């Protein structure tokens, strides 16, 4: 279910009504959890099993880490939930049911073979049976071993599910490729499986919970419903921000109440997010797509322009999603932290990563970079840590070599940034220049060039096309005619208008204050006027087809 659909509007209004009518926190949580599962199951009901699996394992593991022994009926209840979910989400043929056909049967469910539901059914039921047994066994270990066993089980289960759904085909295809290089023929199986939407986001979120419990940074959640809501909370479920338990669970301590101040400022955030997504990202996308779908032969100017368009697209698409998620949450009375802080105004790559996808960069810092030793190690090891962190961060985005390359590129830039910063700190005159307005502009220009090149690597998946694009991006080919700019087809004027509007509005927001805050401070009739005009503009600019958010695929 996409934010910009009527189905979502209906779901949102239902949830608002629940919050307005129901005063009891536990009932509110239960209903919001139900809404979250409907939201996620709208894509594919079978995906829900993965969420229930992850929730059940991490809930039990965190309690196990803290030393709280679940009673046998409690364990049985969790197992029954897992087994029941497995059957409910996998046995009926839900798409066929939606089309009015009858229920599926056990024989149909089990007839899927290696790539079908039989395997998933076996795995789900296997977890349901093995879980309570393992739970009992772990409590026979000493405390340190028990805590470690629960942590490893939780992390392994999460990574196993993520690897299977996201990286299996990538791994087998590369294995077969390696075999070809070595002169061996490897018959690698290719799975015909859909990537569950947002799996990387909620997997990282649940992993942070168990790790925080292990470290003692957060107490284990005692209520299953509250924890399940933390995992599946629908506004940020499929594209973040990746929430830490301490950023979400405290908001569940008191019942939510609709308050006008939250409704106003939350709605303004939603509006800003929709403008970013619908008016800007979706209208610059065709331009970038047109150039990058067949980049061979495109001149440097076209590659530059298309890269700039993609930079606008990915920022507005992703930060637009975050704004909508934050706005909806704020209306409910939940404050989600920012995920973007004007990253395109960064004056160094280190600065860029402080501003871009903050919830992921802090996650990578806290759960990967620091455990690897962080910066409290030798210089060589520090650079290695940075490279490992960023390469894995790149791979997190998708199972493709261009994402690995993108991560390695960002890692290299971060290492270089640290190195160069050290040199300039030692040279007083250079440091003075870099602090001056001209120096800041110079740093910004260099940084912008580097992240633009990064977006090129991120966007172009075909290796030959990527080599061509990088060559054209770096070396100007001297072609200046407008007709070679890729303006022949696609929607040039709207893309340019949308990108231009973004540059002006974004710069204005950076120089003074965020647009949602500015809107909130306006008189109500003026706010209504802005909403009216944006409604009018959106009517004409809303794309006719479905335009999912880019980060849903990660």
């Amino acid at each position, binding site marked *: 279910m996409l934010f910009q659909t009527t189905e979502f509007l209906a779901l949102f209004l239902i949830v608002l009504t629940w919050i307005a009518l129901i005063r009891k926190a536990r009932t509110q949580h239960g209903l919001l959890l139900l809404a979250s599962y409907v939201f996620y199951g709208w894509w594919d009901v079978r995906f829900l099993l993965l969420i229930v699996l992850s929730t059940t394992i991490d809930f039990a593991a965190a309690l196990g880490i803290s030393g709280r022994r679940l009673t046998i009926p409690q364990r049985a209840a969790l197992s029954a939930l897992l087994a029941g979910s497995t059957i409910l989400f996998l046995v009926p043929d839900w798409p066929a049911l939606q089309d009015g056909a009858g229920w599926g049967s056990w024989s149909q469910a089990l007839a899927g073979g290696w790539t079908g539901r039989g395997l998933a059914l076996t795995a789900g039921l296997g977890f349901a049976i093995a879980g309570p047994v393992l739970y009992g066994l772990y409590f026979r270990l000493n405390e340190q071993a028990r805590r470690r066993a629960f942590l490893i089980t939780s992390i392994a289960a999460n990574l196993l599910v993520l690897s299977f759904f996201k990286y299996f085909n990538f791994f087998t295809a590369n294995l077969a490729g390696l075999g070809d290089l070595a002169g061996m023929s490897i018959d690698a199986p290719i799975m015909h499986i859909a990537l569950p939407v947002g799996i990387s986001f909620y997997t990282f979120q649940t992993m942070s919970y168990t790790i925080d419990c292990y470290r003692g940074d957060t107490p284990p959640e005692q209520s299953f419903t509250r924890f399940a809501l933390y995992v599946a909370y629908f506004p940020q479920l499929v594209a973040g921000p990746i929430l830490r338990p301490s950023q979400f669970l405290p908001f569940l301590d008191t019942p939510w109440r609709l308050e006008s101040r939250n409704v106003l400022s939350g709605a303004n955030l939603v509006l800003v997010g929709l403008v970013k997504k619908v008016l800007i990202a979706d209208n610059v996308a065709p331009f970038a797509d047109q150039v990058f779908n067949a980049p061979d032969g495109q001149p440097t100017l076209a590659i530059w322009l298309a890269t700039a368009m993609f930079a606008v697209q990915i920022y507005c698409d992703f930060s637009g999603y975050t704004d909508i998620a934050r706005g909806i949450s704020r209306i409910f009375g939940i404050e989600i932290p920012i995920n973007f802080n004007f990253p395109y105004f960064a004056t160094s790559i280190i600065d860029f990563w402080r501003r871009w996808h903050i919830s992921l960069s802090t996650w990578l810092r806290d759960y990967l970079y620091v455990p690897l030793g962080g910066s409290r190690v030798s210089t060589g090891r520090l650079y290695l840590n940075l490279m490992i962190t960023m390469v894995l961060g790149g791979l997190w985005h998708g199972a493709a070599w261009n994402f690995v390359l993108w991560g390695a590129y960002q890692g290299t830039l971060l290492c270089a940034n640290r190195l160069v910063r050290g040199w300039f700190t030692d040279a007083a005159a250079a440091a003075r220049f870099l602090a001056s307005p001209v120096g800041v502009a110079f740093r910004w220009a260099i940084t912008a060039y580097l992240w633009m090149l990064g977006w090129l690597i991120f966007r172009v998946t075909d290796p030959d096309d990527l080599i061509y694009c990088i060559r054209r991006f770096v070396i100007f080919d001297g072609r200046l005619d407008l007709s070679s700019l890729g303006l022949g087809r696609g929607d040039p004027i709207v893309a340019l208008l949308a990108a231009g509007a973004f540059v002006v509005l974004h710069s204005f927001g950076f120089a003074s204050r965020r647009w949602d805050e500015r809107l909130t401070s306006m008189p109500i009739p003026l706010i209504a006027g802005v909403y009216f005009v944006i409604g009018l503009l959106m*009517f004409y600019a809303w794309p006719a087809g479905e335009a999912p958010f880019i980060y849903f695929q990660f």
Partner: protein
Amino acid sequence: MTESPDVRSPTSIPGRDVAWPPGVMIVALLSAPFLGALLGFVLLTAVVIPRVGYGGVNRIVSLGAHIASPYTRPTAVCLGNSVTIEGVDATLVERAAGTDVSVENLAIAGAHAAELRVQAPLVAAARPALVVITLLPEAAAAPQDLDLDKAYAYGIGGFATDDPCSRIESLSEKTCSALSAAWWRAALRMRTTPIQRLNSAVRARLNPAVSTRRENKWTAPFLRHGSISGLRLQRHISEMRDTWLALQNDDNDSGPAETIALAKEFTSRGVPVLMVVAPVHPDLLPGFEPWAESLVESLRGLAATNPDVAVADASTLLGADLFSDALHPNEDGRSVFSAFIGAQIREFFQRSRGVSG
């Protein structure tokens, strides 16, 4: 990495106190953009569409209106896709066909066999003496669905009155729903018309090599445009080769059947058809000759049993210098292809007169 922002929980929700109750606030904030969108809809239906038409699919709606309007019916009409739009000058066809023949070029860009079947009943109802259908070798591929914007346009243009979905299997449920959509749903779909207009105007200004078709012209719908060459031409040829190869690799068993069904759409309504395999760029030809031959063969099989069907193969008619890109004939190519079609029309009428005489 170490200097990234912290992850502490926000302590309070920013905002400002408002006197309105939350329910009123929500209704007000939801109503305002809806009212804006409503104004947009009223402007679209009352001002934009009547003045600027239906954007990229305007020719389809115009075609429906053109056929339905009272006017002197042409002897022959040419149907097809952009190759026919760019490659057929009705005046030159008339000249080559003979003095008593009038011709119109009713082609729609991107039209494939299934789309031409949607057009068939309305075109046949205009009672032309002959329908000339230009087909690319890809007509031998599996039948395709209709583009959704086009489906809405065919609905608005009056092409859906005889329920095309009951005749054409390749049309999806969505397409069928679009074909029979209520006026307001179709108008909603056409809301990007002003943007499309703006884009095509800018496109034509920035890049004279790209044609902007004359939407309501039925004699010379083409617009003279320059040719591409060198790397860009090679890229276009390569794109077309990839597209056609992908189509060839699909299940193509039903492709010729769809083309034959297209011919029968007209003959069953008492209108003869001349099926012409369009000129193919020489660089694309080697891989597609067998394909073109199989298409011609299956059509000739139909022609052998049905005197209302004639077949002509123009796949090797034009040399590379007569194309403006990988697909479309240039001005000289248009002259040659138009003369070819005219000659075929003349031959068809001579033969049918001979048969009837």
